[in-house]
């Protein structure tokens, strides 16, 4: 009974919170938040710094450091400190629930911490979001794409309210979510099967994890809407070492494209290898969790080349360089770290750093609630990723994705993907 009443209260509060911005006038004056106008403000990040995602998170952390460095680790009279926390353990080789809880608790208990950049894995955010929400800490993720974290009706029935016990939105992200990635991929799949004169059908596999299944489900639904036949939809056993028998089964159904909702860590490379070994010669489409060198390394360049089609939430570094903001980011990154920001999420890390600083600048006082209030009102922000705004859920308004292929063992931008109008 106790629990039920609490959930009711939470839902009620969140409904009120969601309703609040619409009822207040557009030109609202910021409430007066009490707090110091100088001193030290801490920004922490919680990312998997050990294990298989290290390559990606190294560049994210570099991106954050670059943003802070450009501001001279100062906003107004505030001195900015940054701490790089690890939410992975060496034994797990990936993010760990206990570690993420510890990081969130640490941030909560440190009165100087105003911004928490993270996490990398959507599953980890599910754990830290309620902790940080109760503490009113601004959380900005460079990489979480599970829609349920912010958008109602896209995940479990109690999402996203269950992550917002205070009723306030404290979680923001600069990366488009999977519910866009799936449909965008489906539209691309339809185009591809036509162009390569393959059967107008797809076979959808996923790894059974929050991210992989989420994106695969969205892909499948959009395929059905676009009249692209879905011949099968099933999870794979990510602990298995090979999928040859599964692929032999799929071969008999003769799909025009195989989609795998998963990451390089959940066997995306092995799936495509066994697809080729079973003699299936069709495009292999994968989401941005595979948009890293580790995918090509695990699949082998000769297999990945020419048949991998990767959707990614935003423009790759090469495309980013075509805009003025993007180019100055790449140049600054190269100057500071002596190499190009190769991994996909580095620009998102940088953007998170910039947004954190912007929220602190707008707030002007050392007050966690002020950070939330001001961050939620960032509109038409001219960032490295383009011009975007946060919506009422804390999501970016960016809806453009890139379609990438693999050539010569490297990712290559193929085309700009947008939601199909059909």
């Amino acid at each position, binding site marked *: 009974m106790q629990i039920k009443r609490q959930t009711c209260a939470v839902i009620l509060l969140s409904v009120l919170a969601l309703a609040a911005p619409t009822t207040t006038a557009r030109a609202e004056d910021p409430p007066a938040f009490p707090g110091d106008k100088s001193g030290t403000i801490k920004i922490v990040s919680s990312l998997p710094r050990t294990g*298989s995602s290290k390559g990606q998170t190294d560049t994210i952390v570099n991106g954050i450091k670059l943003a802070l460095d450009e501001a001279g680790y100062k906003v107004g009279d505030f001195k900015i400190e940054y701490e790089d926390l690890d939410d992975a353990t060496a034994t797990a080789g990936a993010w760990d629930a206990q570690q993420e809880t510890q990081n969130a608790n640490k941030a909560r208990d440190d009165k100087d911490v105003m911004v928490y950049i993270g996490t990398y894995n959507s599953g980890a955010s599910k754990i830290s979001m309620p902790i940080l929400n109760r503490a009113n800490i601004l959380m900005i993720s460079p990489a979480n794409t599970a829609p349920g974290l912010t958008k109602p009706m896209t995940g479990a029935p109690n999402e996203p309210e269950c992550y917002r016990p205070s009723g306030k939105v404290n979680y923001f992200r600069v990366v488009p979510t999977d519910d866009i990635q799936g449909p965008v991929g489906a539209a691309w799949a339809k185009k591809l099967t036509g162009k390569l004169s393959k059967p107008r059908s797809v076979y959808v596999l996923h790894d059974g994890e929050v991210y992989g299944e989420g994106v695969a489900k969205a892909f499948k639904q959009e395929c059905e809407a676009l009249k692209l036949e879905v011949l099968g939809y099933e999870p794979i*056993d990510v602990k298995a070492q090979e999928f040859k028998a599964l692929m032999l089964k799929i*071969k008999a159904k003769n799909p025009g494209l195989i989609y795998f909702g998963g990451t390089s860590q959940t066997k995306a490379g*092995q799936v495509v290898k066994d697809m080729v070994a079973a*003699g299936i010669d069709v495009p292999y489409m994968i989401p941005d969790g595979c948009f890293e060198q580790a995918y090509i390394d695990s699949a082998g360049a000769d297999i990945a080349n020419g048949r991998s089609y990767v959707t990614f939430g935003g423009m790759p570094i090469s495309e980013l360089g075509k805009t003025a903001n993007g180019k100055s980011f790449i140049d600054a990154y190269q100057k500071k770290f002596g190499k190009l920001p190769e991994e996909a999420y580095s620009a998102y890390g940088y953007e998170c750093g910039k947004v954190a600083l912007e929220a602190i600048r707008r707030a002007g006082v050392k007050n966690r609630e002020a950070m939330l209030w001001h961050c939620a009102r960032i509109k038409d922000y001219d960032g490295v990723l383009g011009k975007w705004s946060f919506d009422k859920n804390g999501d970016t308004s960016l809806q453009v994705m890139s379609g990438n292929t693999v050539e010569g063992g490297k990712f290559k931008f193929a085309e700009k993907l947008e939601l199909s109008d059909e």
Partner: protein
Amino acid sequence: MFPVLLASLDTSVLINICINGLVYGFLYALIALGYTMVYGIVELINFAHGDLFMLGTMLVWTFVGVVAVGVAPGSFLAILIILGMLIAVPIFCALLNAGVDVAIYRPLRTAPKLAPLVSAIGVSFVFMNIGQVWGGSQDVNIATLIPDNNLLGADSSINLSGTDVLIMAVTIPVMIMLTLFVKFTSLGRAMRATAQNPVAAQLMGIQVNRVISVTFLIGGSLAGVASVIYALKVHTVNFQMGFQNGLYAFTAVVLGGIGNIPGAVVGSLIVGMVYSLASGYADNLWATAMVFLIMIIILIFRPQGILGARVREKV
């Protein structure tokens, strides 16, 4: 629904899935033999055996990465490299396996049975960590040395690759040789004697420690052969793969009757076949569960395993 049912009754798919199961069955058999021989001699379930196999595959990866850069699949040079690996990798695995026996299991020979067992689990973790340092924590790719194309022609609905043929061409003779060795050579006789009763064997003048070392050498070298074949077939290595493959092999051993050489082969073929059929016709997610379900059912009716002899518990 109807076309799906029809497709699942397609005989060419069934044949393909059976070939696949057979090939993996033979692969598991090579690993399983190392388990079963060691158990037969010293009654130790060598949990590190799967990880020994993983380290062998790491060696193949390094070897291919250094020697076989730019070598065309199926060329004479590629075949030469495979032959070289079929000698070098088994030697590496054999020496490693025997070395672990001398350093760790031998001092514990008279200790309670659980002491070497727990040590074997420890060795398994040590191997895994070595593998992680060696190959990193991600899946890494091993370049193709045998072309994947279908020997029966690209249009044939039945798929038989050069790798599949090679696996059988290597595995079957190795198993026959092993059986003949154990049956007919004096060292083989000494092994069987040691397995039956180590004390009596020692009294008969058999150098038991030497026999045990030979057993570890043979078991290790078979794992080495499996490593090469696995690398050619699956093309992937990661530090955790020893666990799953070792588990299947161990299951096969129990299924066939532990300590029994033909039993290990029969058990492995069943495991490979059940896994392949289950993931082809049922669900990939349930395939592993299916393997164990079959094992439990068989063991309920034949607790000693399919070919295992009913032995009275030694006290």
